[in-house]
């Protein structure tokens, strides 16, 4: 893996969407530093702006106010230094597994030999051997997300942005993919920014959990999770942390319902 750093620094970020009767602030006063190689989960009630923040980091939309730096360089648009894994796999249905994984390298003009090497490496890493020539329609949901992760990693990005990537998977597959992701992350040592609304998922995966408030989303509390992996979701510390975060989230969900009530 290349000389990765992947430090992300957001300072006083704000995102306002034009809307009627008045503009809506999705994210406000959002300041966060993520160190290179760190695994950070963004957790919050739906509509709290966690996906908005991820989309700004991905470069799909600009922030209204604030600074956003990846390794000290401002983010101005989408780029291959930030790999994105979407909730719906977003694979190119007309390309085989291999061609999906090699897509980024191909677009960037990599020689076909180099591409072949990278593709084989990520096929092996994500446990996709035997499916090289399969089209996405013939893969299960979990396999599709494996390909999506491999596709993002094959570009050798500095940071991996994951927007509820396992939300549409069944419980067992989800658990399996979480373990796989940690294994791959430990090998690849990329920075990961992972959006989820599941407390368990964030506790199983991350180094730190950024708990967000109801809209406009800002940081309510950053919970460090420094237990070794693999983590035991039946442990006492797990239950304590889950209760603590759950209480915060409940307050925020109540607040976001109250907001809805006002608006209706």
């Amino acid at each position: 893996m290349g000389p990765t750093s992947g430090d992300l620094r957001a300072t006083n970020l704000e995102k306002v969407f034009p809307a009627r009767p008045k503009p809506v602030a999705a994210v406000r006063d959002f300041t966060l530093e993520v160190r290179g190689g760190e695994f950070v989960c963004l957790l919050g009630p739906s509509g709290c702006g966690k996906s908005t923040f991820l989309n700004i980091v991905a470069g799909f939309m600009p922030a209204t106010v604030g600074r956003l730096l990846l390794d000290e360089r401002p983010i101005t648009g989408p780029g291959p230094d930030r790999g994105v894994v979407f909730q719906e796999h977003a694979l190119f249905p007309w390309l085989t597994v291999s061609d999906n994984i090699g897509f980024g390298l191909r677009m960037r003009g990599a020689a076909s030999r180099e591409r072949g090497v990278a593709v084989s490496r990520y096929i092996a890493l994500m446990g996709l051997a035997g499916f090289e020539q399969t089209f996405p329609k013939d893969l299960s949901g979990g396999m599709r997300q494996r390909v999506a992760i491999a596709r993002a990693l094959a570009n050798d990005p500095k940071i991996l942005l994951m927007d509820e990537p396992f939300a549409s998977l069944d419980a067992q597959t989800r658990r399996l993919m979480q373990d796989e992701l940690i294994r791959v992350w430990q090998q690849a040592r990329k920075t990961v920014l992972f959006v989820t609304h599941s407390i368990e998922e964030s506790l199983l995966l991350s180094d730190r959990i950024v708990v967000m408030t109801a809209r406009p989303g800002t940081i309510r509390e950053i919970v460090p999770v420094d237990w070794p992996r693999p983590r035991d979701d039946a442990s006492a510390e797990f239950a304590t942390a889950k209760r603590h975060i759950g209480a915060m989230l409940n307050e925020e969900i109540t607040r976001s319902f109250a907001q809805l009530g006002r608006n209706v």
Partner: protein
Amino acid sequence: MSDVARQPPSAPWGPPGMIAGISGAPARRALGLIIFVALWEAFADLNHAGLRFVNPNLLPAPHEIIAAGIEMSRSGVLWADVSVSLLRAAEGFALAAALGVSLGMLSGYLSLFEDFAGPLIEVIRPIPPLAFLPMFIIWFGIGEPSKVLFIAFSCFFPIYLSTTQGVRFTDPVLIRAARSLGASRAQIFLHVVLRAAVPEIMTGLRLGFGMAFFVLVAAELIAADAGLGYRIQEARNQFHVDVMFLDAFLIGVLGFGIGAGLRWLQGYLLRWKSQIN
């Protein structure tokens, strides 16, 4: 495509009443045709033999039509007509495909172009193309250009419209994915938007092809000196009903054959797409 292969021949749910030794969809399909032709032959022969349900000159028997076909194929008229007609259809269709796909992509991708050209196309499109045939003959004479251009004009619209739809409704998340993988604008157009539009483009091409055959015959009926449509018209004047039937069938067979080829191509190009059944 092949429901035959998936069904074991002795499937208990297979259709009843199959003739021993013949099974599967192709055989069933052929059987329908064979029965139809046999009934026709019997009816026409009885009719000729003196029952005289209708004037025998108006209803040739299948064997007479086949005989007419053999004779015309010996004299070379048949092949000349077929090749003239096919060439016209192919030229007109190719022209329409090139224009329809490229302009359709432009209009699906650039809303400026769509604003500009959309209303014009929407006004012309509902007019049956045949209404323009006299104009084409006045403008381009009775030679090949008028027919080729008329065919191109007629099949342009379905191809253009389908392409526009296909390009416009590309899944935005795929474009985002491509952008974050480092694709440039041109690459996104070429490798995502265009690829995503292939299903609609193929549908447009198939519709356009049907249109090409439809108007080809109409154009040849009115202004031509060779071709299957022309030959039907000529046979009408000489009261050769068998030739009229023969050429009409040939048009059907050719249309079916090329249509099947396009269906196969579509299936091949879209093998990545899930299909019902």
